[in-house]
């Protein structure tokens, strides 16, 4: 796969040089104040989305210990909730009295926080802490509904369509204590409704008032006393049923994230579960409403700290690959996984070969084509706790080497206090060099913040065909970076609407053919830790201005082909509207 890297890099270098000249010229003409080669502009304050996230402070006997391990909850999820054509963002806070934010996109790169008015602001109290969120149209009415993922009880808000939301958690059958940390939704059984998958970090011990101190991970590499995954089948009538056992996904890892995608192109989406403190799991969808754990053959058993599961076809070979962040620092050199899909339900880790191995203490990461050159780039969040100059590392290892230490007991763990652990890490923006290697470009584009990043969401907030970036940071303000790419590279986006399939077309695969090439992109149901990107399917086309054909494989499995579609615009495609069906 990497055989042609040298010549590819040479060609790429020529392209970069030409682009650089173009950039310098464009910037000189425009009189921009930021470096000409910088393609992202920090517009956080101007956009008025700069409310600070605050970590939860617990009030229990283990609070001083938990503080170090629950610096979580900063997340951002994107959807056009009001159907006005502009992507909006929901951002979580985690402090006991912190309000969540629904940032309505005013259409001019400014936002208005309408969470209170919409009825979705109150996601935190003494018994619940927001940890993430998910937009998903559970009732197929065409309006994205909102799940607020919490340590405590999740909240499901039905989008009423008038700018307001109604909490329907209990009626939907989702009122249950879970220490939930991530959620995705996809239609695993192809019945036309998206189902809900919830990753749970701690077991369902009430972490606000624990009745035992023994709720921490039993070990650091193969822990099996976590919360696992809960699966809720969508009954199609506004209610859900817990089918975790029935579908074969009962497990007890410290699930931090999940990602779905069709690994073997059989029309049924498979599932990757990233587990902290132990082995990630890969489940193949059997196509009969159940999954099988094929971890051993698919990826093998790792002992790392899985933090993120993002799917995308980084090498444009027509198969979805998976990027997983782990923890990498001087004291713990785990390295990330870039799982190259071999096409036979096995994956090979190519993170070292591609230059994506080391990105610090990893969190959310997203594939997206920021320069519209037709190759998926990668933006990676990192950093655990950035505090004082003293390191927490010796403390944690002093604990680990104590004979007979009981790691499940929170009291065994040293308080972090004001110390730092893998703090002040620079975020990584990896540019994809034709599917061969990735080069680090974060400093060049001003995306190398040292805040403790958690989630990232990608969307074209100003509808200009260039993908913008929203970053959620723990205990800090978020970032909104506007993409100012000056190259004029072509692009096209698709908003899919299912009819027989689930309305949001989650899981739909789009294969676009132009100039003799075919690209695969798909509709994700919220993959990646603490961040959900737009559900629009975006293709960078580079110099290609004409599209030959667009094939949509809907979640039902049915395929449709569309022709005569123009580049450089957003198209809405409704299932069943093509004259060309396979």
């Amino acid at each position: 796969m990497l055989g042609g890297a040298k010549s590819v890099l040479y060609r790429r270098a020529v392209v970069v040089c030409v682009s650089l000249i173009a950039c310098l010229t464009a910037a000189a003409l425009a009189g921009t104040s930021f470096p000409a080669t910088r393609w992202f502009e920090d517009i956080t304050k101007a956009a008025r989305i700069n409310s600070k996230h605050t970590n939860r402070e617990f009030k229990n006997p283990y609070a001083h210990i938990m503080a170090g391990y629950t610096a979580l909850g900063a997340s951002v999820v994107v959807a056009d909730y009001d159907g006005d054509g502009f992507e909006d963002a929901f951002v979580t806070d985690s402090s006991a009295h912190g309000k969540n934010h629904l940032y309505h996109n005013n259409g001019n790169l400014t936002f208005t926080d309408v969470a209170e008015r919409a009825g979705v602001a109150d996601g935190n109290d003494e018994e619940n802490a927001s940890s993430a969120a998910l937009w998903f149209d559970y009732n197929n009415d065409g309006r994205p509904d909102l799940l607020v993922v919490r340590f405590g009880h999740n909240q499901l808000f039905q989008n009423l369509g008038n700018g307001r939301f109604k909490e329907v958690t209990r009626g939907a059958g989702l009122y249950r204590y879970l220490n939930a940390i991530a959620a995705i939704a996809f239609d695993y059984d192809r019945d036309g409704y998206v189902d809900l998958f919830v990753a749970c970090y701690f077991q369902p011990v009430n972490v606000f008032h624990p009745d035992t101190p023994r709720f921490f991970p039993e070990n650091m590499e193969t822990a099996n006393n976590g919360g696992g995954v809960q699966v809720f089948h969508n009954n199609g009538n506004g209610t859900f049923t817990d089918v975790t056992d029935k579908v074969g996904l009962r497990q007890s890892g410290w699930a931090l994230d999940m990602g779905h995608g069709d690994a073997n192109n059989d029309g049924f989406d498979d599932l990757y579960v990233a587990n902290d403190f132990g082995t990630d799991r890969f489940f193949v969808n059997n196509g009969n409403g159940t999954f099988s754990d094929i971890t051993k053959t698919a990826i093998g058993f790792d002992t790392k700290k899985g933090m993120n599961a993002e799917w995308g076809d980084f090498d444009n070979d027509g198969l979805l690959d998976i990027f997983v962040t782990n923890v990498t620092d001087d004291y713990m050199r785990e390295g990330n996984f870039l799982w190259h899909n071999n096409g036979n339900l096995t994956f090979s880790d190519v993170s070292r070969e591609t230059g994506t191995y080391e990105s610090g203490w990893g969190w959310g990461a997203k594939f997206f084509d920021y320069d519209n050159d037709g190759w998926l780039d990668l933006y990676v969040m990192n950093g655990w706790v950035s505090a004082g100059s003293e390191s927490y590392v010796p403390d944690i290892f002093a604990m680990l080497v104590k004979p007979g230490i009981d790691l499940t007991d929170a009291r065994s763990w040293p308080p972090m206090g004001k110390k730092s652990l893998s703090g002040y890490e620079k975020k990584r923006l990896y540019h994809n060099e034709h599917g061969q290697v990735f080069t680090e470009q974060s400093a060049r584009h001003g995306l190398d913040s040292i805040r403790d990043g958690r989630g990232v969401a990608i969307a074209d907030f100003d509808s200009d065909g260039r993908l913008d970036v929203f970053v959620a940071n723990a205990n800090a303000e978020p970032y909104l970076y506007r993409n100012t790419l000056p190259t004029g590279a072509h692009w096209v986006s698709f908003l899919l609407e299912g009819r027989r399939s689930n309305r949001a077309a989650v899981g739909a695969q789009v294969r676009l053919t132009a100039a003799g090439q075919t690209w695969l992109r798909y509709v994700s149901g919220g993959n990646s830790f603490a961040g959900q990107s737009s559900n629009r399917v975006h293709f960078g086309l580079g110099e290609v201005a004409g599209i030959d054909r667009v094939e949509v494989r809907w979640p039902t499995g049915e395929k449709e082909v569309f022709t005569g579609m123009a580049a450089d615009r957003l198209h809405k495609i409704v299932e069943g509207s093509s004259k060309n069906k396979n």
Partner: protein
Amino acid sequence: MRAIQFGHAAAALIVGLAAYGAPASPEASFQAAQKARATGDLTAALAGFETALALDPDNIRYGSEYRQAAIQAKEYERSLKFFEKLVADHPNSAKAHLNYGFAYVDKIQAAGSITQVILANTALTEVTRSIDISPTWIAYYTRGNSYLFWPKVFLRAPLGVADLEKAYGMQKAGPKRTYHVRVYISLGDGYWKTDNMDKARAIWTEGLREFPDNAQLKARLARNGDDLKTYIDNELDPNKRVDTNLQELWASE
């Protein structure tokens, strides 16, 4: 084929004798185990080495070859359990403790990153016991070199330098051995890791005078700055298997 059968049979016989309390010769057990290992019969080899070590626990060569066979068979736990019992039975056997420490190091590459630290720390404990019993060149070199693998945050590099300086003093006081080049390399790495670049270059240069063909010393002296950092970081990467084969010790004597 006949040789293979003989090696297997001999190892089995010696193991059998030991099991029934007949006092086998440790060297005979060792040689039979070597033969079994050479033929790929690792089960017989491990048993033979264990017999030899049980009879001569302070034999550094037996322990080293046993561990190499254990690595080959991926029998890390068996090796650790064996040495645990061996040092319990022979608490004053310095070289048994040393090999026990190496047995932990042998497992590091096969472990997760957290377990690596725990194994490395336990290895240091055993090597320190060995030093307490008998402060030898190999024990000081081993412990000093091990400290260099620890990330800076643990502040162990100065301890490594102290041990390696002791080993350096020992080797200067005796006849020159080919393996002494290791101290020149590691002590320089220790100085580099403690930000004493002048001393690092000086000891590498002295080493190269003593061992003019050594490629590792040449590589270090040819590099500077980030290039040197990358090189040494790569050399001290705990995810790579550390060569704990001690055959150089007796090969050069």
